[in-house]
């Protein structure tokens, strides 16, 4: 499985803070986003991501057991 963390309004879109998706066929962040788009009919365009707590690109590899976080524009401070 791949763990997906949802923050801020992403939580509302996906109905929770944590999702687990099957890692079958998933090799990159882009694959994760494509999966979420089709499975949840969710607009995640332009969202930033982190893999295992490091900011990631769409091409960043993702494998079994990794944690992918959906990072909307931050607004701390």
């Amino acid at each position, binding site marked *: 499985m791949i763990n997906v963390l949802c923050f801020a309004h992403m939580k509302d879109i996906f109905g929770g803070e944590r999702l687990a998706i099957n890692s079958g066929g998933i090799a990159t962040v882009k694959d994760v986003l494509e999966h979420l788009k089709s499975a949840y009919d969710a607009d995640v365009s332009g969202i930033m991501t982190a893999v295992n707590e490091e900011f990631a690109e769409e091409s960043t590899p993702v494998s079994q057991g990794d944690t992918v976080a959906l990072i*909307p524009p*931050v607004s*701390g*401070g």
Partner: protein
Amino acid sequence: MEKRFFVTSEPLSVEELAAEVTRPEAGAVVQFIGTVREFTKGRRTVYLEYEAYHSMAEKQLEAIGREVKERWPDAESAVGHRTGELQISDAAVIIAVSTPHRKDAYEANEYIIERIKQIVPIWKKEHWEDGEQWVGDQLEQTRYPDGAPGGGNK
């Protein structure tokens, strides 16, 4: 020693943050306290809610601390960011920087708050009398015009 870069749901203390960076080599400590403002763009905030990707946020704060060290080798810095429900005038973030000479302390401090608003995964939700909204972009270039994009709470 306590963590120098931390996210907490407890109230922040200016006394404690200042103490983290005070040292014999320093002649100046500059602190920034980000407080909850009642009115933003004419709209009254009732309270704010801050959410963090806790573990990554602390890592990012530490990374900013290292950036500061590269740019101002004589500076010591500490940052605390609060999460949860914050009332008007509560401190959401406190940044403390000490340096031998004051100019650097002001500059490094301002650098840190700018970087926090860019790379630290923390989000705030405005709660007004008649609604609520996650704030999308702290640099105030954009804001989701009507609540969360793609649905979500109004």
